């Protein structure tokens, strides 16, 4: 479904502070499965997630979605593709302060032009599904970490994208809240969505959620484990 061919990302190329965040990554991500990008801080997980989701353009290589090259797409098409295909869950939640939870969830659907009432109904349903129905009118700064992450997941689902990209979804949460989030993600997998999770939280890899693990270090792919054939190496999770 998603294929990366010789992808690299260099920040500040040609300058003193040139930094190669991702180098020569070639891999494919299958539809309907949960793939985890694992590695210490600075290993390139977030950048790779951005490259997969079209948030960042590669400095070299190609990213293909269902055979179509998306790395060279003009911005207008890339924006539409991001909106329709990918739901993003960010490490820092990226909810907009002073807006209600409901408004935050509805926001990515506004540019689609769908009727406001339809968007609102879907947003309320999604908030119910993640257990935040009662908090719909609350401002996002009043939410706890777990609630904020669940609101972010509801927001990622508002446009019904087939692919969810989650960057350290359990990073700021205790074990109980982390398990809640992982249960929500497992439910999304059961409903046929493709999940790509960047994480170095051992809890993520202890569950049955992850089917495939891609270990990264210094922007390169070290190993690719398939859960059914290769046991998890939890030591690789430590930063």
């Amino acid at each position: 479904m998603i294929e990366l061919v010789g992808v690299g990302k260099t920040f500040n190329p040609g300058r003193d502070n040139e930094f190669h965040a991702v180098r020569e990554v070639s891999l494919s991500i299958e539809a309907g499965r949960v793939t985890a990008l694992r590695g210490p801080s600075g290993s390139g997980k977030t950048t790779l997630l951005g490259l997969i989701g079209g948030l960042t353009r590669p400095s070299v290589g190609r990213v293909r979605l269902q055979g179509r090259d998306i790395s060279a797409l003009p911005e207008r098409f890339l924006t539409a593709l991001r909106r329709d295909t990918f739901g993003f869950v960010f490490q820092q939640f990226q909810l907009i302060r002073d807006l209600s939870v409901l408004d935050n969830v509805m926001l990515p659907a506004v540019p689609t032009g769908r009727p406001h009432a339809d968007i609102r109904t879907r947003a309320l349903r999604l908030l119910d599904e993640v257990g935040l129905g009662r908090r719909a009118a609350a401002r996002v700064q009043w939410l706890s970490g777990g609630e904020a992450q669940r609101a972010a997941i509801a927001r990622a689902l508002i446009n019904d994208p087939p692919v969810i990209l989650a960057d350290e979804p359990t990073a700021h949460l205790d074990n109980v809240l982390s398990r809640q989030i992982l249960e929500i993600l497992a439910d999304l997998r059961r409903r046929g969505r493709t999940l790509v999770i960047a994480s170095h939280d051992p809890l993520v890899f202890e569950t049955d959620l992850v089917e495939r693990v891609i270990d990264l270090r210094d922007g390169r792919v070290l190993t690719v484990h398939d859960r059914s054939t290769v046991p998890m190496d939890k030591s690789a999770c430590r930063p």
Partner: protein
Amino acid sequence: MIFQPAALALLLASSLNALGLAAAGLFALRMLRHWNPDVGSEAQIALERRTHLVSTLVVLSLLLSLPMLALFTHTADAMAPFFAGAMCAVGSLQANAWGLPALWVMLAGFFLAAAWLVLHRLDTRGWDQPLLLAKYRLLLLLAPLALAQAALLWLYFGGLKAEVITSCCGSLFGPAATGAQAELSALPEAIARPLFFVTLTPTLAAGAVFLARGRLGRVFGMLAGLNFLVALAAIVAFFAPHIYEQPHHHCPFCLLQAEHGYAGWLLYPLLFLGTAAGLGAGLAAGVRAASLQAEAPRLAAALARIAVAALAAFGAAVSFYLWRSNLVM
């Protein structure tokens, strides 16, 4: 040099236009040599990114250049009183050797710029940018033209001297004149008049068929181009004398003056707009890229509507002036 605000504006605008298009032309050369979308190399990705920047630069340059034709004609007309013997823009343009060539180059630049803008508009609507290479090939024509235009304008305005005795339009379009424009002046009305309407009518009909049934788009584009040439010939051959009500006054530039009711400022914008939109409609109708299957016909239809409206208004205005004229030739 004669320091006129409009002349200075033209020099500035044409220089900016030439600079922008020269830079874009150099990029186009590099791009056409190294372009390979099958490869995700660093160089290819850098080219892909820069195409967006260069295209924006070209759009701005061309939008700046489109009104220059009207401003140049107006400036030449307004400068006529500075030169002994000049009665209209023709006298000013003949005040040195560079005026008329500048006008021809500007004319060609106008239609090429319009064509490029149509291609660009379509190209940015296709996810795979199917017209990218065609667009950049056309830039290789536009860039030298913009440089030539700027050079000619600098030579023309820089070389103008107020004491020069120049020729009036009668020397170009009068009975004693020689050359293509003199041949046009001598074209009998009995031929030119039916030819004008016989060209305009099928052009409008092709446009109407295209709008109604989506067919004959390219034919409409070609007829719009042909109609432009015939209309210019008709203006010189029979239409101008009817406006002036003088059988030997064939100048197409005196139409721009107040004593003739600024007829040219009504007719020429309609003709140029109709022709540019008609050519653009033909161009868009001929695009067969899969990613533009919906967008190309939509843009072609929008342009055809503009072209048909402008050319119909042009035909109506010509008919009105002919009906009002007291001249019998």
